[in-house]
């Protein structure tokens, strides 16, 4: 029987044989974020929080146009960061162009959350990458993501 391996998750989520096409890694553009600033949100949807981020982006954002001046690239880490997946979160962060920010969404991404005592969970995304804003919740409401993005802009925006 041919050996089957668990394909290492890559950016774009492309597993063997699946063409991501216009997949989830395309950034979303949050409108109304402020004059002259566009937020390009990259959603690292790792677990349940991904559903809330998807709901938020679906409701309040649209596909991002080509990045122009004033674009801030935000990586939203939504969900539990496991030890096996941690290198890929780091790789996703490194691929972000400047100016870049990280928003940690949900208890698991903040600190490991309910799984802080697990044998395979990284206790928070900030163990791997620098986090700018922490949004608490389990899961946080989609509106809380907007609040977190606004706080992000308030800190670093015009």
């Amino acid at each position, binding site marked *: *029987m041919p050996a089957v391996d668990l394909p290492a998750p890559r950016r774009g989520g492309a597993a063997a044989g699946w063409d991501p096409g216009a997949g989830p890694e395309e950034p979303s553009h949050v409108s109304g974020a402020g004059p002259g600033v566009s937020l390009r949100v990259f959603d690292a949807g790792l677990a349940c929080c991904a559903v809330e981020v998807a709901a938020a982006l679906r409701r309040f954002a649209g596909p991002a146009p080509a990045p122009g001046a004033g674009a801030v690239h935000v990586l939203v880490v939504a969900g539990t960061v*496991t030890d096996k997946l941690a290198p890929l979160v780091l790789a996703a962060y490194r691929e972000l162009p400047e100016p870049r920010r990280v928003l940690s969404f949900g208890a698991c991404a903040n600190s490991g959350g309910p799984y802080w005592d697990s044998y*395979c969970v990284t*206790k928070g995304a900030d163990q791997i990458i620098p986090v700018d804003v922490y949004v608490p919740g389990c899961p946080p409401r989609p509106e809380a993501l907007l609040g977190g993005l606004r706080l992000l802009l308030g800190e670093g925006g015009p």
Partner: protein
Amino acid sequence: MKPGEILAGLGGTLPGARVVAEAGGMVTVDVPRQDWLPALAFARDEAGCDFFDWLTAVDEQDEGLAVVAHLYSIESGLHLLVRTLLPAGDPVLASAAGLFRGADWAERETHEMFGVVFDGHPRLTPLLLPEGFDGHPLRKDFPLAARAAAPWPGAKEPGEREASARSRRRLVPPGVPEGWPPA
């Protein structure tokens, strides 16, 4: 195949099999280790259980490791739980990957979580644990190190400023074995 016929069919070919429980369309069958593959083959070919759901292990501690497989017949709705017990010092079992393709990854996970060695598996490498992980986490003697290391906020008595040795009772948080970490 009706649940009542399972034992009749099994008993003919596998004398060591015992039907342990039968409720709500689910039949639990215990088989000795050497009859593991014949029991699964019987389930698939004779009892019509063509859907392999999952395979995992249960740490029975002193008695050993029990390996459990859940099979399901799409046509008749019969659930079959096939179990076998591996002795504590010798957790080796024949691999079911040749019978059910789905057993391939299930056995890889059971191997890394419990330490069961599946003879004949095409590639018994870790599936979910990161590289360099030491130990078999789902065994009962694998403690949650984070719980034992972090101070438990509930260890204080009411009215105590900090946990002191003169507490009347030493409260151990759930999930930490008694006496861990070893002094």
